[in-house]
């Protein structure tokens, strides 16, 4: 009885007793959810256009952030460094298409998946070689990212809103909106989806696979850079960031591997779920609930909607 009380009665009572804390938890959940969504977005882009789960997305985030910070460390002004980093991500996209994807065209997806593993370790090595392994501080001020926090009085208590979190949420939402429109409504967007569905048919209408892959890897590179800046500004820039990329997995399962809006909704559900779980049910189970709760939520979803909330439901006939 005591246990049931602690699970079902106590948390809502606490929520009601300290609504300011609840709002704080919801806000923090939303913010980390949006950031998870940013990472998931990178995966979705590449999965949509090539049906490949790009294991290297996490290291692309680190690599982009390191390039930006490293260039600035050598005296390059922040916004010039940003432009050069974009250039580097474009060259990376070209190189991946030329060296990895083109020779492996028409191979099974598992082969391409394994190739992204290889790419991951290559980028880890290259990053450490050029920039060294020690953590670096993101150049938030020079990129005009706001620091500090708003303190808002609410329900007789206080809620702290970090300005950087607000900026992150706005940037992420803009990126998602732009990409969603692009995919749904434009020639290149349709071509991207076409390639994802059938290489053969896409070729027959004159779509160039090479061009599409470069575009999509470059788009994933841009998303990686945005993710790197935002995550880097909240903690710092190190190879440990690569691990957070795995947090994108439950988000993808929830939102569907092919849906851009799904990535954001899935991200927020996971983020809020995690924070509430940690605040109200965490003490019950000892701490550390945050490291596995997301996967449990995803697992439950998987039972009922294998294609995710927004995934394209492809009907296979037997």
């Amino acid at each position, binding site marked *: 009885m005591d246990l049931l009380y602690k699970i079902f009665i106590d948390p809502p009572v606490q929520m009601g007793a300290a609504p300011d804390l609840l709002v704080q938890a919801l806000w923090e959940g939303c913010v980390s959810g949006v950031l998870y969504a940013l990472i998931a977005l990178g995966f979705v882009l590449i999965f949509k256009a090539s049906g490949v789960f790009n294991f290297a997305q996490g290291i692309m985030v680190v690599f982009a952030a390191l390039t930006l910070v490293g260039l600035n460390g050598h005296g390059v002004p922040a916004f010039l460094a940003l432009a050069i980093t974009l250039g580097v991500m474009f060259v990376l996209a070209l190189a991946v298409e030329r060296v990895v994807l083109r020779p492996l065209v028409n191979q099974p997806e598992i082969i391409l998946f394994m190739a992204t593993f290889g790419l991951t370790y290559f980028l880890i090595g290259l990053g450490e070689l050029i920039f060294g392994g020690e953590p670096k501080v993101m150049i938030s001020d020079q990129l005009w990212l706001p620091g500090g926090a708003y303190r808002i009085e609410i329900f007789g208590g206080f809620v702290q809103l970090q300005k950087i979190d607000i900026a992150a949420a706005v940037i992420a939402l803009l990126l998602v909106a*732009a990409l969603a*429109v*692009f995919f749904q*409504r*434009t*020639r*290149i*967007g*349709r*071509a991207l*989806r*076409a390639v*994802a*569905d*059938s290489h*053969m*048919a*896409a*070729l*027959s*209408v*004159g*779509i*160039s696979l090479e061009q599409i892959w470069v*575009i999509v890897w470059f788009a994933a590179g841009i998303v990686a850079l945005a993710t790197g800046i935002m995550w880097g500004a909240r903690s710092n820039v190190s190879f440990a960031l690569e691990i957070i990329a795995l947090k994108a997995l439950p988000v993808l399962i929830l939102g569907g591997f*092919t849906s851009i809006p799904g990535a954001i909704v899935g991200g927020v559900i996971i983020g809020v779920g995690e924070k509430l779980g940690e605040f109200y049910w965490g003490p019950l189970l000892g701490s550390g609930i945050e490291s596995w709760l997301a996967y449990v939520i995803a697992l439950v979803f998987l039972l009922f909607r294998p294609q995710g909330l927004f995934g*394209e439901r*492809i*009907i296979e006939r037997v």
Partner: protein
Amino acid sequence: MRAPTGQEIAAGEILLSVDNISLSFGGVKAVSGVSLDIRKGEIRAIIGPNGAGKTTLLNIINGFYHPQQGRITFKGKSRSRMRPYEAARGGIARTFQNVALFKGMTALDNIMVGRTLKMHRGFVWQLLRFGPALAEEVAHRRVVEEIIDFLKLQQVRKIQVGKLPYGLQKRVELGRALAMEPELLLLDEPMAGMNLEEKEDMSRYILDVNDHFGTTIALIEHDMGVVMDLSDRVVVLDHGIKIADGAPSDIKNDQAVIAAYLGVAH
């Protein structure tokens, strides 16, 4: 435009020809030493028993396979191999034996993808979806709606193609090919798996396309009745070798063709 008569075709301009084409996979000779031409405005049937190399030939024409020997001449330009992009750009469209549609998309979007090469506005305009890019999108949408009307697909335009019955999927695929405004349309068994009524519909669409747009058509088909009714000229393959080429009435009585289909008494 009116479909040309037999004599006109015999005298007509050659749109595409393959010359002494060979391709083997490992030890299997899929096509060996085949030559044939396709003339402007005709309906050209390619027939033969299973495994005769018909689809391989189509794949060579639109650049999916590269022949190990021989040349392909399309619109006066001769080359040893075609690339899919060149073929599409040059005006060759095709459909597939087993239907290759973009399953996650609606019928409308599938046909819109066929317009890819006709749309030219740059990346940034498209991203903004504003001004010239929007005007372009609207203009192409109009063309696609005409194709939808032509093929009577109005009812299903917003439905995901994976959910459509097979006959309609084949029709959407034809629509996508037509959206490319092709000069040469390659149809790989357009009536496979259809019932009589669907076959009659499809035959009518093929004739209409040939009639109204003057599109040259090369088609692979197993239904002899359909082949004899539709085509101006027929080429027969067996085990990768061309065994007959001519008007349908001649092919029907050709001893080699009858032997290939029915076997020879020893």
